[in-house]
Every structure is written in C-alpha cells, then in structure tokens.
C-alpha cells in the first residue's frame, strides 16, 4: 500500500514560515488549478478502486480502505459539474483531514506546493451564494499568470459527509423557518 501513497514529507517544517504566509498544495482538475492548505492534507495517494455507495450523487465515488479506516472519496470534477472522472493510474486522491474526519478528493494530478501570503489572495467574485460551489471557495491566487482557486477544506464536501455543524446549521435554519 505504501507504494502508491506518498506522504507529504515534513509538512510541519515547511509550514513554519511567517504567520502571514501559508503553504498550499495545488492540483489540477481538467484545465483548472485548485489549492488547499497543506496542513489539512494528510497524504496523497494513487487511485485504488473504490466500493460504490448506493443511491448517492455521482460525485460521491464511494469508499476506500485507508489503513483500516473507511473514508469516502469525492470526485471534484463531478462536483463542479464536469461529469464523472474516467480514472486512470495517473489520477490521485488528496486525503484531507478536517478535525476528526478524513475524506479523499479525486483529482487529475498534483501540480505544486505554493507559499502564499494572505495579502496576495483575492476574494472570489460574488457568485450566487446558494450554490454550494460558492461556499467551497476561499479565494483566488495568481501564480505565473495561472489562476489558482483556493478551496476551504472545512466546507469541502462537509455537507455530504453529514458533518455535525452543517447539520446543526440546517437544524437552526429549520427552526428559524418554523418560527
């Protein structure tokens, strides 16, 4: 299993930059490039066949065994409406840890590790806030004339995994509506 998983080496050392800068792992999905904070990335592993879960949206690829724990895999391309990814050996899964929970995100390839200053991040243009996509975005960054879309890992597929705060939020909304 270790052959197809590549740990992010020494991420704590690398993250020890100044407080105004943070490191991001960037990856590509189709022509677009996305970035997530490196501290939330637990590991990057090659594609292993998933077990499908019944009756869920197409972007929920299924579940895989990550050294004894079962984690869901989400297809970022499908989530953003680009259709299901045809997986090859070159596709990778970015394993993200948010709090106690771990999930995998299927992307095309890892491209870079960037150190980005807070002031270099541009706010995303206003999208319709009801779109889940809008909640995922935390900012935009330009690197060698490429635009990198920075994603908020705490929101990324949080609702799909039934994260408590989302449920709580929804419950609050429900009661607000009822009142």
């Amino acid at each position, binding site marked *: *299993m270790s052959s197809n998983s590549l740990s992010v080496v020494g991420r704590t050392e690398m993250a020890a930059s100044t407080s105004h800068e943070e490191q991001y792992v960037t990856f590509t999905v189709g022509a677009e490039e996305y970035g997530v904070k490196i501290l939330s990335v637990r590991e990057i592993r090659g594609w*292993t*066949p*998933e*077990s*499908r*879960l*019944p*009756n*869920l949206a197409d972007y929920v690829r*299924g*579940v*895989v*065994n990550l*050294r*004894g*724990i*079962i*984690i*869901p895999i989400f297809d970022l391309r499908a989530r953003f409406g680009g259709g299901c990814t045809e997986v090859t050996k070159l596709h990778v899964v970015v394993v993200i840890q948010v709090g*106690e*929970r*771990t*999930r995998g995100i299927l992307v095309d390839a890892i491209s870079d590790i960037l150190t980005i200053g807070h002031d270099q991040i541009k706010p995303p243009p206003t999208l319709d806030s009801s779109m889940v996509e809008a909640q995922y975005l935390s900012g935009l960054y330009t690197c060698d004339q490429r635009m990198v879309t920075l994603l908020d890992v705490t929101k990324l597929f949080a609702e*799909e*995994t*039934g994260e408590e705060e989302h449920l709580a939020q929804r419950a609050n909304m429900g009661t607000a509506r009822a009142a």
Partner: protein
Amino acid sequence: MDDLSQFKQTYFEESAELLEVAESGLLRLSPDNQDMDEINAVFRAVHSIKGGGGAFGFTDLVAFAHEFETVMDGVRSSTIPVTTDLVDTLIIANDVLGRLIGHAQENTPIPPGTTDAAAQALCRFLGKTGAPTKSTDSASAEATSATATATVAGAGAGAIPAADDGRKTWCIRFTPKQDLLLSGNDPSFMLRALERMGEATIDCDVSDLPSLDHMEPENLYLKWTVQLLTDQTKAQIEDPFEFVAEEGVVEITCLSETAAGPTAAKTETASVGAVAVSGSRPEADSGAASGSGQLTVYSKSGEAGAKTAANKGAGGAPPTQVAGHTIRVDLDKIDRLVNMVGEMVITQAMVAEHLRDLPPGEFQELLEGLEQLAQHTRELRESVMSIRAQPVGSVFSRMPRLVRDLAAETGKDVVLETSGENTEVDKTVIENLVDPLTHMIRNSIDHGLETPDAREAAGKPRTGIVHLSAQHRSGRIVIEVSDDGRGINRPRVLEKAVEQGLVPAGASLSDEDIDNLIFLPGFSTADKVSNISGRGVGMDVVRRNISGLGGRIAVYSAPGQGSRFVLSLPLTLAVLDGMVISVGAERFVLPLTNIVESLRPKHADLHGLVNKCDVMMARGEYVRLVYLHKLFGIPGAVEDASKGLVVLVESEGDGRLGLVVDEVLGQQQVVIKSLEANFRRLDGVGAATILGDGRVALILDVAGLQEMSQHSGSGGGVRQISDLASPAAVPLLRAS
C-alpha cells in the same frame, strides 16, 4: 493542578464503584439480615468517598458523607437499630451522595437544599440514639486538624483510670507518616473514634514540629499517644486506623487487665499495617477497598448452583468478595488494541488470498507458516475480545433497586432472582442492555405480576418472583426475564390491538401471534398512563434496541403461570459472521443471523404481483423479491432471479424477504467498521468492513432494506402473518 485532575478522575471512577458497593450492601440490609460484613463494606465505601472528597476539597460532599458515615458507624456498632425506615433513609442518602459526586465531577454548583432532606433524615437517627453528632463544618476543621486535634482530650487527663468492670487501659501510640493528610485521612476522626470507645487521654507530641520557615503546610508533624480505658477489644481499637494502615505506625499496648499502672504492661504491640497484610483483621476477608492502591476490588459471586441467593433479598449468603489481580486500563487503549487486531485479521486474510494462487507443493513451509499465523490471529482476536468482555452482573446489579422501587410504587410484593451473572459479553453489548432490561422488568412487574391479594386468590404465594438469567448458548448470550404472574391476557391484548387499529377486527391469530402483538409500536393495554407504563412505548423500543444490536427477542406465555421473555444477542459488536454476496461488481456482507437460506428459484416459482413486485414460491409460502441491484442502482447485475440467487432473509419480526443477488461467495467472519466515522449513515447499510483483498464491502441492514423496498413503491406483496409488526402488512390480512 493538572496532575490533580488525573487523580480526581480516578477518585470519581472509584467513587462510582463504591456507591454501587454501598447500594448493593444497603439493598441487602434489612432488620432480619444484618450482616456485619455488609455493614462494614458500606461504611468503608462511604468513608473512602469522604476521604477522597476531602483531599480534593469537596466540602459539601464531605460534610454530607460525614453524616452518612456517622450513621453507618452507629449501625455497625449496633447503637442504631436496623429498621426498614433506616434502610430507606440510607439508600436515599446514597443517592444524594451520588448526586453530590456528580456535581463535583461536572464541576457544577450543588443546588441548595440537595442534601437537606437526606441530612435531616440521617440526623434523626443520630438524635434518636444519642450517638455523638458532629457538626457539618468539621470539614473545615480538617484543614486545621493538626492544631484542632491537639486539644481533643477526654476526662481524667494524665491519670490512668482504674476500673473493675472488665474494662482495660490501652496505650495507643499513633505515628502517622508526614503525608497522611494528602491521602485524605484526618487523624482527628480516629482520635474522636477512640474517645467514643471509653475514657481517653490524648497527648499530642509536637517535638517533631519544625520551625515555621521549615514547615511544609501540607505535612503532618504530630504524633499522638492515647490512653484509653475501654471495654472494647483490641481489634475494635484498631478499627479506626483501618484506613491509615500504610500511612503510619499504630502501636496498641494493653496497660492493664483491670486496673494497673503502666508498669504492669502486658505488651501486645502490633502495627496495624502488618496486621492488614497478614489478613487477620476481622474484615480483611471481605476485601477492604482501601483507597490507596489502584487495585480494583470486584465481587465475584460464588457460582455455587449458578443462583446467587444473595439477590433474593433476605436470608441469603452475600457474594464472597475476591480481590482479583486486576488493573484499571483506559478503554481507549483497549479499543485501539481491538482495532489493531482487526487490521491484523484483514491483513492476514489478504496475504492468504494472494498466496492461494501459488503452485501447490512448492512453498509448503510458507503455507504451513501461514496456517499457523491464521491460528494465532484467531486466538489473539479471541483473547483481545475477552478483555472487553464483562460479566452481565454489572447490569443485573442495577435491577434490584429498580425492582424495589417498582414494588413500592405498584404495591406488589416482588422478589428478584438472578442467575448467571458471571456470563461474559462485550462491553458495548452490556451498555446497550440496560434500557431493554429495565423496560422488560418494568413490564413484568407492572403487567405480569398480580397484586398480593389477587395472587392469594389464585392460590399462589403473595410474593411474586421475577427471574433474570443469563447464559451462553451457541456463540450468543441468551438473557431471560421471566415472572410467575398471570401471563399475557390474550383476549385483552387482541381486543386492545383491534381497538387501536393495529389488527383488523375479526382476524384470527394464533396464540403466538397475539403474544407478539405486544411488540407493536403504540400498543398498550394499560388503561391509564402511569409513571411506569401505559404510554405505548416500551416493548417495541425494546425490540428495536435488541435488533439494533443484532439480537432477537421472543416471548412465551402461559396463562396464569407467567411469561418469559428471551433475548438472544451476539457476544460482540466488533466482529460479525456474514455471508459475502456479489451484485454486479460490488460485494456486500449479509449478517448470518438474518439469513434463512439461499436458493436458485426455478422460473416457474417466480410470479409478478399486480405489476408491482415479484414474488417467489419458497417452501410453500409466497415471498416478496427485492432486487438488490435495483434498490442500490448497481449496473451490470444479473436481472433475472432464476439466473442469479435468492437469499431468503428475515429481520426481527419484519417477515421474510427474498433478496435477489448475483452470487453467494462464502461465509466469513468480518470486522465491523463504522461508515459514519468519516461519512454518514446510509439507508439499507448497517456498517462496512474490509475484505481480504483490502476492498471495502458494505454490511447490509436487512430491516433497512425491507423499509426501503416498501418506500420505493414496490411495497406490498404477500407476507406472513407474523409480520404483523409492520403496519403495511395489515391491509393484506383483511384480504385473507
């Protein structure tokens, strides 16, 4: 202070155990049954709670525990007679003490008045007997005990009083260790206890007291010499020092047989510590829960005849207590170990699967080694699981209290008998047993047992018996709750069920079917809602809980003789015996307990039913078919049931169902993994597991599948009468 919080945690854990010890001791206490060992055990439990509480500065708790302890002290010295009133008061006091500990644990303020009633009740007993009452603010005195106790002095200071009434003069030299106060002990209590025994002269030796700038405020530098004229025996004099056996040296010397000077000393010196070790103390064999060590003392009821008579309430022998060689281990650590072993089982299966394709004969040794590994893995898993296993006695022990309360509330005479308390089962199962058992015992007492008068009229003894038993049977634990009451009143149950619209009028049901009606949601025979029952939530919840644990429940009843509820549960929730099946490219695990049989139907056995669903004739019954690939949307599966396989499954009371799958791959023990840890619950899926090739397979939840298939519009179908539990089946009954 963080170090302290760790000790606090231990204190709370120990207190919880001690409270249980105290409660079970108190429950056995009655005017006819005054077992000194039991009384002492209760006394020690309360004392230990108080001592620890003092160490952490829970002043209210200590003050109350002190009152409690004083009464217990009176009981054990027989100055307070044991009456039912007293026992009731003590049980309530124990509850209050538990609440105070709860407040201390959660660090919440104690609501004013929490202790008032109980404390007053306790005082009443103290006042009645004239036993020395100490003010509750003695807690604050503890802090300054060193100075306070120096002034405690009895009558006749300095002289050794002579007496000719069988009393002796004793010299007690108590040299505590300097850290005595840190263990929550207070020498003033011991000195006062001595004082109560007779005429005491207490001298405090302050020679070791360092100068103020060298003094550690938490250390104790004092020594005491007490001359005591008393009719008590040496063992009784040693008694107050029981808890400081390891915290100091106590020398007790008899100075006179009747009346003599110190020169006539017949020396009989012994350190209490040494006595404690040699075990010659009167109470030593009952397992002193001395607060100092990490040694857990738990009761193992002597399995003589499996029936522990002690729980009959009166007259029985108490369970002998055995100080086992146990350690207290954090549950997380054990869980991690269980997980690791689970991983190993999977890895081992994985290796085995890879090596299966090796040419035979070539790697004989490797294969033999693998065989051994498999054996060891299995044994390792079993031993790890047995660490988590606990005797069901820990649940059973809560029931006497419940029975006592219910009996009082319903005005019925009830005796609870238990057997098989030592039957072991996984901790998670134990935790989930409390609610169902509580419900069932409630049900038995409220509905099953008659009032004493009615029993007498029926020619039965006035006292009803509820029997709770546990045993291992074919890899499962079977728990029975039976009563010798009136049994299920079938005509009335049927009438009520019809009234509540749960069964169509005029339906003819077998006795067994009627008995099973009590498990229907919303069913209740009670005419008025009481505290105990009548809300119509109960037995259906019991059944749901039990089937949630992978268990089954059945009821047997004989009119006039009583009813019997039988629970059968898996021994662990960490592994499961399952059948691996395949549908399309996916594999699933079906719990073996749900499977009736699997068969390949002939084309002629398959029929469509009102274009809604397919049914199959299996062993003379029509069974509704559910296509797993349709339900789960799996492509590439076998569409024709006669080309695939039908697995007949049944869940608790929800009738049978034919699950159409591609293939049955084989039986396997699988490790249950949570899907919810990183994802969420899915309909029709109970959990997940990892198969030998490292892939994840979902464990199917048969009851969930049944529900899904009804909601997905393909509901209905011909079902057995026994699935009355599901309201959807009721209209079909009308047709029959």
